């Protein structure tokens, strides 16, 4: 009996992502031609650096999307846990303890999201939408509405660093690799993907769907905290309005651009990376062209709508 060979990884990647890759190339081409500063080493490093935060949020979102859900509260969690950490730093708590507490706070938010969604059988979007408000409010309350400036040296050194790239991108890539490993190679990853598109099959074979769902929201919360650390390190401040404008929407748009589906079942980590790059390049390019922040919002919003329409069409096929 002939043993079949798997298609090479390269081939499969190409099949799946040719659309996004082409878009990425076209976008870069366009901006390179329209702005002399776009395709410079400095700018590329800039893009990659700024992608880190989006990437971490998107990775958490990949888990949630794969399970058929969505998490709108990541931006607020980012802000809130940042404020918590900053307050603890200011209270002279050891950096490690403060970080740990902030991480636990983020995971707690995820836990609450997950439990409410599974126990009351509610739609993820409304639960996480309400949570978005609640946590944002908490961030404002705890911070008094003002940013908290000044992070401890050790914290900055780890999360920002002063190497060429800044540590952010490495942390992001590390988490991404970990996520890919879990999603592709572990039982948990298989179960997450099995929840997509209706959980019937998973339920019938005895998968504990509630437990898996709660876990993905905890993961999303965790990623929001790590992203928060990167954000604070780069700003040297914790802002209660962080993640308010587009970050959380990008966290949803990027994975969808990369092929992940609102229906679930897909956990394309590489797709999320590509999606993040697309958005970052667009933002950078528009900046280079002198296009104001306002236009960028239009651009990002349109990209989200386009991505969602695309997903909808893909699902019909």
């Amino acid at each position, binding site marked *: *009996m002939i*043993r*079949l060979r*798997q*298609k090479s990884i390269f081939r499969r990647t190409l099949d799946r992502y040719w659309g996004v890759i082409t878009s990425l190339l076209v976008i870069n081409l366009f901006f390179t031609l329209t702005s002399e500063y776009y395709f410079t080493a400095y700018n590329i490093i800039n893009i990659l650096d700024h992608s880190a935060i989006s990437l971490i949020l998107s990775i958490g979102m990949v888990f949630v999307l794969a399970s058929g859900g969505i998490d709108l509260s990541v931006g607020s969690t980012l802000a809130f846990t940042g404020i918590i950490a900053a307050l603890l730093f200011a209270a002279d708590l050891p950096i490690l303890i403060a970080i740990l507490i902030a991480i636990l706070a983020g995971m707690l938010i995820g836990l609450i999201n997950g439990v409410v969604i599974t126990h009351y059988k509610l739609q993820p979007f409304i639960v996480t939408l309400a949570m978005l408000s609640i946590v944002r409010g908490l961030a404002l309350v705890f911070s008094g509405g003002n940013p908290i400036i000044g992070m401890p040296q050790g914290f900055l050194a780890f999360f920002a660093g002063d190497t060429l790239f800044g540590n952010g991108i490495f942390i992001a890539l590390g988490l991404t690799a970990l996520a890919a490993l879990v999603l592709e*190679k*572990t*039982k*948990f990853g*298989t179960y997450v*993907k*099995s929840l*997509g*598109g209706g959980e*019937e*099959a*998973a*339920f*019938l*074979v*005895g*998968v504990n769907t509630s437990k898996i769902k709660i876990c993905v929201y905890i993961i999303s919360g965790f990623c929001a905290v790590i992203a928060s650390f990167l954000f604070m390190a780069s700003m040297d401040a914790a802002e209660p309005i962080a993640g308010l404008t587009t970050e959380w929407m990008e966290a949803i748009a990027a994975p969808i651009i990369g092929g992940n589906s609102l229906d679930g*079942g*897909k956990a394309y980590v590489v797709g999320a990376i590509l999606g993040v790059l697309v958005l970052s390049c667009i933002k950078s390019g528009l900046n280079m062209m002198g296009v104001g922040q306002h236009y960028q919002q239009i651009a990002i919003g349109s990209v989200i709508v386009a991505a969602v329409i695309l997903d909808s069409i893909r699902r019909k096929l």
Partner: protein
Amino acid sequence: MNTLIEMKSLKKTFGGIKAIQNVDLELYAGEVHGLLGENGAGKSTLMRILCGLEIPDKGIIKIEEKPVEIFKPTDAQNLGIGMIPQELILIDGMTVTENIFLGHEIESNKLGFLNQREMREKAMDLLEGLGSGDIDPDTYVGLLPKAEQQIVAIARRIIQGGKVFIMDEPTSALTENETEKLFTVIRKLCSEGKAVVFISHRLEEVLDICDRFTVLRDGKRIVSVENTDQIKKGHLISFMIGNEIEEEFPHTATTPGEKKLEAQNLSFTTSQGVEVKNVNFDVCAGEVVGITGLVGVGKTELAQSVMGLRKLKDGQILINGKKKNINSPVSAVKSGIGYVTEDRRGEGLVLGLKSLYNMTLSSLKKITRFYVIRGYHEKKLGLDYSSKLNMKNEYIDLEVKKLSGGNQQKAVVIRQMMGDSEIIIFDEPTKGIDVGAKAEIARLISSLSKEGKSILIFSSEPREILGVSDRIYVLNNKGFKGPFKRGDLDYKKLMAIEFGEKNAGGAQYE
């Protein structure tokens, strides 16, 4: 003979309907046990109980002499019982290997990491053992043809372990060759000491593969008997439908008028993926035409196609002699066609609304003036029609989910009547309705035809079709047959036509 499973005195009622009454069933190791019965006889309920998807009201289940309790699917799995449902329930977006090992993954260490190489190898071995070594373990299940998906489902069941395999209508989408292949697999399983419950309407196949059968009718066990040469299809049919005519379907003769609806050379695809061609029929004013066939043969899909809910692959529909392009229910309704769906609760009614509101849904123009609903007018209309149908007046104000099945169906029918459709399509009109209400609905259909409407009924209940129709068409596995005149058919003849001959398979029908 090693008795694997003994089910005793099982009883299950669903809100007044006795799905299973005092049923016993024994399953021996190494046997293929056919489970037969008409739609609603209780087969699936019985098996769902065995699989932990329903909990019986009464009764005992014993596995190898020991009494057990099966409250959820995992209980059944732990006891070695598992079903391969008709819809297979695989995950299209996952690979063959992933589907096979779902829930029973092989881990390479404590951390939960998968041993994907081993799973892949084992999957390939398993598939080869099932005679399908050519299925690529890395391909996405959604891309496989139905027959191969089924092999994957069986492989998954094997990995789950255990001795009891329940297969629900496994051959409905298979060709003759594929069926033979499946039978080889089943025989192999049995030779290993497993027991297979084979639920099917395909009587020739049942006679071919099964060692014993049990026939259920109306929730009761009629007989459990060994398969010998003396048993013929006719015997099985008799067991399944009984010989007494239990239900009366009143009928009034009418003189049909001109052709209202004509279907020419329709061809469509059933939900099982089978292509049906050359469907020709017509309905005249004041006539009731029945289209019948076994469950799953494609009646609902045909009904949906006529209503514009489903794309036709070919053919045309003429209304009053003129060709109409019916590509959506909007155009169907404009052409005068109304549709009473099979799935009352799913499609036919808005459960949370008053039944009155459900009734007037197709007639909003009638009860509104400048888009404002005239409540008094609406109520009057509703009362008019509901009294015509012997429906209690107060029912029209109740949320329709609170009504009995019979009254719910009446509400849907009233919608059609109010909507003044000239042509009304009924899909399984008396499904899940008690005997008394069935007769009423039948009377209703008759009176509608007397008023000059053209009625098209799709039904799997032969007694209903025979009772109500003026002319009958049959969709079987060889194609679309008919028309037969009312007087020319009786139960036996009709059933014989429905069961047709040995399955010609998924290829195009003649």
